[in-house]
């Protein structure tokens, strides 16, 4: 069976690949949106923290024998705590200033983190084995589905929608939404906003680290894996707009899929299609597809 002269199975496998990339975009842009909402910080270090997540998983396995599943639980916590330290020691002083300063500081943190990992491990990628439980592939008729890639999509969508649920449907989430609108007023109600800010940054960073661990068996674990991803993720965030949680998730997934299909129909464009879309969206809806005009 063929569509526009393209075999079905190729389409499906690119759809899956697009969903995998889209899952990473979604998790990363979700964290960026949550952080930007409450802290007003454009967290450029998100890519480096993603890389750190992948590296910690690799180090855990190679130095301490911590397997993938434990890494998936522990690494986000460790990197999240590291994020809280960054917030408490550095970011805290920038909230009253223009966004640009937060961007500059987190860019500096990115250079530092990447530099440290590069000086120890170079730029060549370290392989990370797919966990035994998820190795191999399942034949689902039209295509053979690599088990690990399917797991990545399922795991990240679960995390994304759980995050959406907590933010949009629970009491804790109502603090976060209110804090995003008017943190001073939330504090005047007796809520410890400084702690809430730290935890939110820690959570956003933990999401990046979780994505990093998920990515370790797919991408090569290298000091530059974060910067390759973060550029696209920022374009995703611009397209989706900063205003909405669901918007970040859908835009991330959608762009991953669009990128995947572009690779089928016009491979030369696949690396740039996201940026072309970004340009178009900026011209038509400067606040992004789901963003709110301020």
């Amino acid at each position, binding site marked *: 069976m063929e569509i526009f002269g393209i075999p079905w199975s190729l389409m499906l496998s690119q759809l899956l690949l697009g969903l995998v990339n889209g899952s990473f975009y979604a998790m990363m842009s979700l964290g960026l949106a949550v952080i930007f909402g409450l802290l007003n910080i454009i967290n450029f270090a998100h890519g480096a923290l993603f890389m750190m997540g992948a590296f910690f998983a690799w180090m855990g396995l190679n130095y301490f024998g911590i397997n993938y599943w434990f890494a998936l639980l522990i690494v986000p916590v460790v990197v999240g705590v590291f994020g809280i330290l960054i917030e408490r020691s550095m970011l805290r002083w920038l909230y009253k200033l223009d966004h640009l300063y937060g961007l500059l500081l987190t860019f500096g943190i990115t250079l530092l983190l990447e530099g440290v990992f590069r000086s120890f491990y170079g730029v060549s990628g370290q392989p990370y084995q797919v966990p035994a439980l998820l190795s191999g592939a399942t034949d689902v008729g039209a295509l053979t589905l690599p088990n690990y890639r399917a797991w990545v999509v399922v795991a990240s969508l679960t995390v994304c929608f759980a995050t959406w649920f907590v933010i949009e449907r629970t*009491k804790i989430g*109502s*603090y976060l*939404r*209110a804090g*995003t*609108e*008017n943190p*001073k*007023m*939330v*504090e*005047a*109600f*007796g*809520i*410890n*906003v*400084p702690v809430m800010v730290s935890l939110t940054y820690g959570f956003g960073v933990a999401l990046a680290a979780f994505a990093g661990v998920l990515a370790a068996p797919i991408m090569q674990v290298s000091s530059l894996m974060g910067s390759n991803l973060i550029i696209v993720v920022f374009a995703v965030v611009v397209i989706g707009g900063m205003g909405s949680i669901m918007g970040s998730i859908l835009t991330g997934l959608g762009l991953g899929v669009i990128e995947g299909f572009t690779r089928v129909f016009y491979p030369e464009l696949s690396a740039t299609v996201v940026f072309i879309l970004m340009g178009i969206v900026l011209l038509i809806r400067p606040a992004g597809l789901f963003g709110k005009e301020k």
Partner: protein
Amino acid sequence: MNTVAEQKPIVDNDPKTAKKALEIRNLQAWYGESYILQDINITVNQGEVVTLLGRNGSGRTTTLRAIMGLTGARKGSIRIGGVESINLPTYKIAHLGVGYCPEERAIFSSLSTEENLLLPPSISKTEKGMSVKEIYDMFPNLAERKASPGTRLSGGEQQMLAVARILRTGAKLLLLDEISEGLAPVIVQALARMIVTLKAKGYTIVMVEQNFRFAAPLADRFYVVEHGKIVETFAASELDSKMPVLSELLGV
């Protein structure tokens, strides 16, 4: 179990025995470089309703914001229920039992009416605030529209919501900034009745009001603020004799 008749707490105005809900001494406050409050001295006894009068820009709103720690630097002394709060962060000040309703109402647009109402957490272990049911009985409009986004409510409903949400928390000292501003007379009357009810329940209230006719019959005492200083203070009973001074100070 309704044996306790509705008791009107008697306001104790004797300075020696009265319990002080709020005592502000030599308060100065800044916004960045601007020196806004220069010398504010206010004492509010438990159960009193006190109104701050003054022209726009005289520093009344800033006084309330300074009590909450929402201005820039502050100096002087603010004792809430006897506890010094001048060096406390905003969220701890709230836990001394203060509920703040700002002039701009600050209803959250991404929260439903009911989420707005339930947002402020309980701030006191001992004091219980009004229950959600009591609040909905007092403001039936809010019950009808509890699922709507907070900012879809009418101006009057938003104002009711802004006040209602601080009644749940156990706060006994309420700071109400211009709650009658820009509202239809029928709503203003409802708010006046609400103040009377709250006073009867033992709440202590500090109001900033532009609407003199709204504030006059409600308050026990008045302070007049001018250029960041208290320039005049008098009790409700002195109101008539003070009218000439007031009209000069406020231009009413």
